[in-house]
C-alpha cells in the first residue's frame, strides 16, 4: 500500500506541473472537439492528432494523447445522445436510450449521468491500474522470448475472438498486418523485404500513414459515398443539466455494475470500450425489474454502458503499459507513439522510467476530472459544433491528414502511402474486414518475429520449446481454447447476440 501512494505521488508530481496540466487540458479539449464531430471516431481522432504530440517530451506527449483519447471517447457519447449518430462503436448502445431521453427533453440529465458515471469509472479504473500494474510487470519481466511469443499469439487471437465480425476474416487481417509489419529491412539478416525496389520503403511502412490512411481517410471516403443522413439533432435547448433525485437512485447501481464489468473486460485483449459498453447494456436489461423501459429512455441504459466504456477504455492501458501488448486499436496507436518517442513498451518501462509511467497514470485521473468540468458547462458549444455540415468538415479532415503525415518525416511519399491506405481502408470497410486486428498485427509483427528467432536460437531450432516451457504452453493452450470455443455453434450465436444489440 505504501508503494501505491509513493508511486502515485511521483505520478502526480509529474502530471500536476503547469505544463503537463496544460497539455492534458489541450488534449481533452481537442479530443472532445474532434470526437463530437459526427463521422470521426476515437481511433481516427487519435491517429490524426498523433503527429501533433511527437514534438513534445515523451511524458507530455503521452499525457496529451491520453487526453485526446478520453476526450474523443466522451465527445462520441455527446454526439450519440444528441444526434442519435454514434461516432464510434463504443457509444452505439448509448444512442438507444440516451437519444430517447434527449427527445423527451431530458438531454441534460442524460449527458450529466454519462459524465458523472464516466468520472466514477475513471477514478476506479485509475486505482486498478496503479494497483495491478506493478505485479503484472513483475511477471512480465520474468518472461523469456518463448513466453513473449506465445503471449503475443494469445493476445492477437483473443483480440480477434472478442471483437465482432467474422473470426476467420479477422485472423486473415491479423496475418495481413503481420506481413505489412515486415516490410522493409530485416534487422537480423539485413535483407530487404517487399519494398518493391523503393528506397523509401526500405525503412518499412510508417505507422502514421497506415493508421491515418486506413482509419481516417477510409472513413472519409465511406462517408462521402454514403447517402446524406438526415441528422435528427435535438433542437430543444439543453436545459436543466442536473439529474433528479429519482434519476440518481436509478443510475448509481448501474454505474457501479458498469464500472465493474468494464474494468474486467477492458484488461482482456480485444476488450476495451466497445465490448464493455455492449455487455453492460445487456446486463442492465437483464437485471432491470421492467426491461420494457429500455429503448424508451431508461437512464440505466445510459449510466451502465457509459461507465463501462470508460472503465474499459482505461483498464485496457494495463496490458499495454505493463506487457507491451495492445488489446485494441487505440492501444496499438499508443504503442506506436511510444516507439516513435524511442520507448520500447514492456515491463521495463515502469522500472526504468517511473516518472513516465506514473505520470501517465496520474494524468488519467486528472483527464477524467477535466472532462467533467469541460463537458457539462460547455455543452452549448459542442451542440453548435454538431451543426457543422459534413461537406465542410471533410475538407479540414483531408488537409489535417495530409499535413499531419507530412510533418512526421517531412517526406511527401508518406502522404502518397496514406492515400493508398485510405483506398484500402475503404475496401476493408465495404468487405467487412475489420481493420483493427490488422493494426494490432502490424504493431506486433516485427516483435513477434524477433522473439520467434530468439526462441529458436535458445532451443537450437526446435519448435518444441514453446510447448516444453510451462508458461508458454499455458498461454498457447489458452489461445487454442479460445479458437475452439468460438467455433462452437452455441457460443457463436451468443457472441453475435451480444454485438447485435441495436
Amino acid at each position, binding site marked *: 500500500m505504501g508503494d501505491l501512494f509513493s508511486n502515485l505521488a511521483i505520478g502526480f508530481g509529474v502530471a500536476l506541473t503547469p505544463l503537463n496540466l496544460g497539455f492534458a487540458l489541450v488534449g481533452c479539449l481537442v479530443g472532445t472537439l474532434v470526437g463530437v464531430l459526427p463521422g470521426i471516431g476515437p481511433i481516427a481522432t487519435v491517429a490524426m492528432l498523433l503527429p501533433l504530440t511527437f514534438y513534445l517530451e515523451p511524458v507530455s506527449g503521452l499525457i496529451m494523447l491520453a487526453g485526446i483519447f478520453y476526450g474523443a471517447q466522451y465527445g462520441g457519447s455527446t454526439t450519440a445522445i444528441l444526434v442519435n449518430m454514434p461516432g464510434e462503436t463504443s457509444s452505439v448502445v448509448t444512442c438507444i436510450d440516451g437519444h430517447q431521453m434527449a427527445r423527451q427533453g431530458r438531454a441534460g440529465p442524460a449527458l450529466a449521468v454519462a459524465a458523472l458515471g464516466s468520472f466514477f469509472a475513471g477514478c476506479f479504473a485509475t486505482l486498478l491500474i496503479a494497483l495491478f500494474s506493478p505485479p503484472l510487470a513483475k511477471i512480465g519481466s520474468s518472461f523469456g522470448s518463448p513466453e513473449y511469443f506465445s503471449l503475443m499469439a494469445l493476445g492477437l487471437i483473443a483480440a480477434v475472438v472478442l471483437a465482432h465480425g467474422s473470426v476467420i476474416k479477422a485472423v486473415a487481417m491479423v496475418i495481413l498486418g503481420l506481413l505489412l509489419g515486415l516490410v522493409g529491412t530485416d534487422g537480423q*539478416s539485413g*535483407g530487404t523485404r517487399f519494398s518493391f525496389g523503393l528506397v523509401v520503403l526500405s525503412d518499412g511502412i510508417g505507422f502514421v500513414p497506415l493508421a491515418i490512411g486506413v482509419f481516417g481517410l477510409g472513413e472519409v471516403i465511406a462517408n462521402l*459515398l454514403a447517402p446524406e443522413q438526415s441528422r435528427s439533432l435535438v433542437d430543444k435547448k439543453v436545459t436543466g443539466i442536473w439529474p433528479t433525485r429519482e434519476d440518481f437512485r436509478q443510475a448509481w447501481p448501474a454505474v457501479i455494475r458498469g464500472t465493474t464489468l468494464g474494468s474486467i473486460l477492458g484488461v482482456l485483449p480485444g476488450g476495451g470500450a466497445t465490448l464493455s459498453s455492449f455487455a453492460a447494456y445487456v446486463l442492465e436489461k437483464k437485471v432491470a425489474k421492467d426491461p420494457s423501459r429500455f429503448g424508451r429512455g431508461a437512464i440505466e441504459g445510459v449510466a451502465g454502458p457509459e461507465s463501462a466504456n470508460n472503465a474499459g477504455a482505461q483498464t485496457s492501458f494495463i496490458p499495454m503499459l505493463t506487457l507491451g501488448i495492445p488489446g485494441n486499436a487505440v492501444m496499438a496507436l499508443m504503442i506506436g507513439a511510444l516507439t516513435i518517442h524511442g520507448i520500447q513498451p514492456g515491463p521495463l518501462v515502469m522500472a526504468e522510467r517511473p516518472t513516465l509511467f506514473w505520470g501517465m497514470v496520474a494524468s488519467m485521473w486528472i483527464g477524467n476530472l477535466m472532462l467533467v468540468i469541460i463537458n457539462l458547462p460547455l455543452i452549448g458549444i459542442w451542440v453548435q459544433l454538431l451543426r457543422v455540415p459534413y*461537406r465542410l468538415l471533410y475538407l479540414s479532415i483531408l488537409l489535417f491528414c495530409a*499535413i499531419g503525415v507530412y510533418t512526421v518525416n517531412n517526406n511527401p511519399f508518406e502522404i502518397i502511402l496514406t492515400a493508398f491506405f485510405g483506398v484500402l481502408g475503404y475496401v476493408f470497410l465495404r*468487405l467487412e474486414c475489420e481493420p483493427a486486428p490488422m493494426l494490432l498485427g502490424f504493431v506486433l509483427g516485427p516483435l513477434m518475429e524477433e522473439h520467434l528467432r530468439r526462441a529458436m536460437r535458445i532451443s537450437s531450432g526446435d519448435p518444441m520449446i514453446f510447448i516444453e516451457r510451462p508458461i508458454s504452453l499455458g498461454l498457447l493452450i489458452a489461445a487454442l481454447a479460445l479458437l475452439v470455443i468460438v467455433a462452437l455453434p452455441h457460443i457463436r450465436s451468443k457472441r453475435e447476440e451480444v454485438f447485435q444489440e441495436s
Partner: protein
Amino acid sequence: MTSDSVPPQPSSRWHLLARKDVLAGFMFVGIAALGLFLSRNYPIGTSLRMGTGYVPRLLCWILLGLGAVVLIRGLRAGEAMGGPPLRWRPFLLVPGSLLAFALTIHEFGLIVATLLLIGIGSLAGRELRPLEVVIAALVLVTMTYVIFVWGLGLPIQVWPDL
C-alpha cells in the same frame, strides 16, 4: 468491385462474385500470392537461423489458406455486397487530393499545396457551393499556417521556390 446499384440477377454467374466474402477471399488470396511471388528469391534459412524469407513466406502461406476458406465459404453461402453504389468521384478524388498535395508541397510550398488539396477535394463531395469552397480555403489556409508554421514552428516551406 462492381457497382450494385442494379439488383443482382439470381441466374447470372457474376452475382456470385459480387458477394462480400467472395471478394474478401479473392483479396486475401491475391495479396498472399503477390507476397509469395515477391519473396520467391528471399533466403529462407533454417529454423535455427531464419533467413529473410522464413517468416514472410510462412505468413503468406497461412494467408493463402485463410483466404481460400473465406472464398469457398462465400461461394457456398454469402451475403451480397450491400451499401451505397460506388461512385467514382469520392473514390478517386479523395486520394487524388492527397496525391496533389504530396507532389506539390516540396516545390510549391504549403499554400499552393493546400489550395490544390481543397480544390480537388471539394469536387469529391456533393453540393458544395463555389462560395463555400472559397471561404473554406481561406479559413483552412490561415488555420494551417497559424497552427503548424506559426504555432508549432515546423520547418515547412510556405511559398513556392522561385
